[in-house]
């Protein structure tokens, strides 16, 4: 790859908010809470499926210190989706601010706003509710059975875009895709696999739970300060849910303590806004960790059937994936997540005959939502484990099998067109792919050459190596839009106003680097403000691995426009044509090296002197490609064959994200995502009782890996140059989470011959496998 001489991008500069955060300066929603804010608490349903037959809030309402009680009887009943997606949303409208029907343990019954948390909690206890308990759907397998209880029997529930939706059968979405003749491809194969896999529930676990506050200003507008990934969608959906115009709502996003997709949902903001309107006081609502587990969002659990056929020479003849996805009590992101199972995973291997089906069902369990990986995590588990199984059947090294079949630069896949996000996709050819180098570098680092089959291993403790190849996307082509505003100040600094949301990823820094590189100035000269629906231009928000690629291009575009303006003024000041000058180190210089004027002089000139105008502009970007980042992951495990305990020894992630704009942050994204995936694979688990209540909603019992549990980890960034991206960049934030389930699963198999097809990989499951009595794959 050609070496490029970047001055600001591709450098590990200090993150622009690093000192503020390191010094603990007030930055997060919780830090900004007004002292007189009323505290909101929510009474939730103890039943998985029930109808409220009577509710009495009078005692609670009259308690001293209580300012308002909201329930279905005193708020607007407007059907909407909680999914923070573009309009019209691909998720069904099936949610109300409050309803008399309870659809999961944790559903909203009534909210109280009171002067203290204690009073609010006491008021919740004073609300009297009677329920008619209904039979519940607690397993995906039961959702569409004849006679299953109907979860959304309200007349209003509907799909917004023309996609299959059948609420009478608990079907929230469905997508089918067939390319070539799948059955024929299977028949042509020398070896086939046909297995079921299950991806379990998992939670984002951001350090900062959902938290929101609101107040009504003197113009009667509702100002919401909230921890959100999608300020603009939040504004639109809150206005819709309250039945008020968008202009009455302003959403401000301060710093965020992690989101990972959880905050691409409108979970608190509708109630917070309603309470502010009702009480005319500042109100504040923060989820407890328990509420975060139960009532926020989760990864969509999926039961999958994967079928692959291959010839002895390694040609893949057929690739089939059927996903039954559990969207829980509401259909948020159900369709698009399941679409991604196909579109972000199946194109990875060349194959003529492809079958894909995704069916999304409602259950009376916690709701799925956006979660880093977004469907690719689920499908990669099934596909990448099955790839190993086929390779074994045809007697090929799984690495060679992948290397032979994976998509390469210049290739396209019919899947790109066939499957979009809830609609047809967009044709694209791969313009950058260094997966082959990722595989090589990763294999070298893990010591793949020493890998032996499990049958050669002896002794109580056995080591094994496993791998997985991955792809994702970068933004949603022809749908997502980002914009940026840039203006110049007297001292030659610039205000960069971003609708894009930094949720802790460092995207403010990355976007400022792109602006500085384009303008020919230093990072310190860029003052970033993100995001505020009154002040910053529109951006869909932080999701779909879009910020660097999509918002980065909006920033690059606006910076190019502003650079032109600067050149024009500079040339005028130097009495030259714009073509005779260039930008260098915050100055406009004559190309012949004679004269120069600083950015500050240019700003002062344009503001106060001649032909006065504000140097600045706004630019929008919609992308036409979604170039995939690629990765090869490798895991080494040690299995105790007496107890089944799996020790993760080493994990290697080699990733191609184009040009890493900020290499340290990019590495951090890989490491964070990998760690996230490792703990999902090894320990995370929602435990439910037979009434659908989660029994371990806290970090005491729901276990996450901490730094102490880290295996030896190695991240390798393999650069490529994505010509459609800003300075060659594509995405990196999501892809890393998809590898650990299959890579570790494959390593366990290689260690001891036990193939786990459902997570988490507990010692007990491995032990059962070692004894030949693994239970059949099914949902929790």
């Amino acid at each position, binding site marked *: 790859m050609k070496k490029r001489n970047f001055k600001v991008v591709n450098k590990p500069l200090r993150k622009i908010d690093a000192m503020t955060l390191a010094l603990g300066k007030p930055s997060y929603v919780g830090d900004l809470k007004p002292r007189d804010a009323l505290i909101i608490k929510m009474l939730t349903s103890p039943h998985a499926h029930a109808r409220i037959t009577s509710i009495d809030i009078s005692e609670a309402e009259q308690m001293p210190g209580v300012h308002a009680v909201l329930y279905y009887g005193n708020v607007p009943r407007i059907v909407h989706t909680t999914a923070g997606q573009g309009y019209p949303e691909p998720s069904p409208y099936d949610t109300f601010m409050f309803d008399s029907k309870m659809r999961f343990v944790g559903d909203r019954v009534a909210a109280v706003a009171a002067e203290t948390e204690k009073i609010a909690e006491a008021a919740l206890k004073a609300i009297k509710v009677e329920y008619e308990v209904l039979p519940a759907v607690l397993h995906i397998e039961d959702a569409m059975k004849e006679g299953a209880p109907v979860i959304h029997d309200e007349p209003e529930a509907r799909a917004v875009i023309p996609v299959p939706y059948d609420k009478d059968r608990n079907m929230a979405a469905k997508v089918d895709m067939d390319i070539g003749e799948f059955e024929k491809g299977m028949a042509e194969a020398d070896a086939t696999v046909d297995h079921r896999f299950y991806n379990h529930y998992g939670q984002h676990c951001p350090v900062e739970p959902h938290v929101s506050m609101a107040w009504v200003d003197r113009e009667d507008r509702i100002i919401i300060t909230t921890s959100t990934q999608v300020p603009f969608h939040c504004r639109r959906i809150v206005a819709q849910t309250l039945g008020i115009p968008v202009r009455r709502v302003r959403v401000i996003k301060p710093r965020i303590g992690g989101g990972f997709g959880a905050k691409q949902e409108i979970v608190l903001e509708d109630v917070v806004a309603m309470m502010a309107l009702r009480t005319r006081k500042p109100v504040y609502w923060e989820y407890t960790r328990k509420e975060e587990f139960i009532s926020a969002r989760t990864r969509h659990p999926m039961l999958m059937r994967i079928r692959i056929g291959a010839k002895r020479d390694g040609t893949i003849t057929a690739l089939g994936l059927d996903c039954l996805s559990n969207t829980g009590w509401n259909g948020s992101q159900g369709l698009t997540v399941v679409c991604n199972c196909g579109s972000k995973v199946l194109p990875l291997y060349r194959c003529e005959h492809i079958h894909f089906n995704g069916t999304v069902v409602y259950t009376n369990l916690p709701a799925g939502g956006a979660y880093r990986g977004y469907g690719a995590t689920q499908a990669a588990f099934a596909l990448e484990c099955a790839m190993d199984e086929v390779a074994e059947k045809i007697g090929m090294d799984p690495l060679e099998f992948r290397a032979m079949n994976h998509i390469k630069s210049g290739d396209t896949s019919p899947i790109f067109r066939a499957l979009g996000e809830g609609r047809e996709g967009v044709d694209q050819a791969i313009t950058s792919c260094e997966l082959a180098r990722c595989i090589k570098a990763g294999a070298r680092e893990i010591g793949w050459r020493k890998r032996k089959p499990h049958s050669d291993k002896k002794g109580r403790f056995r080591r094994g190596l496993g791998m997985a190849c991955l792809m994702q996307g970068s933004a949603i082509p022809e749908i997502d839009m980002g914009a940026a505003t840039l203006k110049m100040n007297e001292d030659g600094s610039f205000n960069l106003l971003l609708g894009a949301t930094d949720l802790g990823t460092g995207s403010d820094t990355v976007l400022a680097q792109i602006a500085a590189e384009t303008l020919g100035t230093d990072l310190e000269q860029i003052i970033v403000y993100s995001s505020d629906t009154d002040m910053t231009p529109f951006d869909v928000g932080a999701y779909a691995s879009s910020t660097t690629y999509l918002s980065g291009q909006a920033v690059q575009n606006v910076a190019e426009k502003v650079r032109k303006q600067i050149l024009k003024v500079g040339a005028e000041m130097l009495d030259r044509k714009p073509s005779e000058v260039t930008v260098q180190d915050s100055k406009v210089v004559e190309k012949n090296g004679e004269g120069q004027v600083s950015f500050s002089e240019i700003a002062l000139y344009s503001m106060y002197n001649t032909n006065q105008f504000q140097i600045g502009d706004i630019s929008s970007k919609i992308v036409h490609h979604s170039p995939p980042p690629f990765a090869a992951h490798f895991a080494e495990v040690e299995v105790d064959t*007496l*107890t089944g305990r799996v020790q993760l020894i080493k994990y290697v992630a080699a990733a191609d994200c184009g040009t890493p704009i900020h290499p340290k942050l990019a590495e951090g994204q890989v490491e964070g995502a990998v760690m996230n995936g490792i*703990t999902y694979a*090894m*320990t995370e*688990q929602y*435990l439910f009782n037979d009434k659908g209540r989660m029994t*371990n909603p806290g970090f*005491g*019992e729901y*276990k*996450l*890996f*901490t730094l*102490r*549990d880290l295996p030896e980890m190695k991240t390798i960034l393999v650069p490529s140059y994505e010509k459609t991206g800003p300075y060659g960049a594509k995405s990196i934030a999501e892809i890393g989470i998809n590898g650990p389930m299959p890579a570790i699963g494959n390593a366990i198999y290689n260690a001891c011959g036990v193939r786990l097809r459902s997570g988490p990989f*507990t*010692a*007990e499951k491995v*032990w059962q496998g070692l004894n030949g009595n693994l239970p059949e794959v099914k949902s929790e």
Partner: protein
Amino acid sequence: MNYTDFKTPTRLDEARALLKELGDAAVPVAGSTLHVFLRDETPRIAVDITRLGLDGIRREEGNFEIGATTRVAELLEFRDDGWVLDRVADAFVSQTVRNAATVGGSIVRTFPWSDFPVALLVLNASMIITGDSDRVVDADTYFASQPFHHFQPGDLLTAIRVPPLVAGEGFGYHKERRTGSDFSRLTLAARLDVREGRVGGLRIAAGSGVPLPTRLTAVEKALVGARPGPKKFAEAAEAGLEEVRWRGSAGLSDDYIRHLASVRIVDVLTQAYEEAKGERS
């Protein structure tokens, strides 16, 4: 917990007098970490017992005498011949909690998953309680039920006496957990000595997976006087399985924990045996 006041006595008698006088309205607090697990909202006065000079580890008449308010972090750092509690402290949650929690606090109110009771049982420790009548309670009696039953208002645990390991003795400890900071799903500890090629004395106990830390006397019986070795350990473990009703947690089944116990009993016996033979540092 709902603390309404915080008293900071600096002498043992002063603290005891306060606690006695206030009765149920007060509670002694050391590291004050237990409140994370308690739902009790009754208003109480906290009497801080960390300034009474009850901390530190000393040798006293051949034994280790651990002051009740010694932080678990100190147990991890401490080194001396025959000292093994650093291994238990190492498995104790996290450094953050080790820095705050005291060894006394962790054995006055215990949980099935508590680490120290199992180790102290096999080490044959004694608990020194200072009250109107001072007493020394042996580990078997002390841990036979929830230990706080041994305390009257004004009584304080002041020290723990632990006999050190001597030549020919070994200690084995295992805590089964999903992550470094997890609660134990099964704890096993063993102290064993070998005399003339045979098991001379053995104390082995289990925690977690069982309601209260329990000596596995059938294992002890099967091994004392026997020639130690993997086969014998496995046979003894089988005997131990019958003694206790093993319970699963965190999604792990009873059957699995029972199986795990059969493996881990052998593991801790092997560790202790190797150490007794001087093969383990």
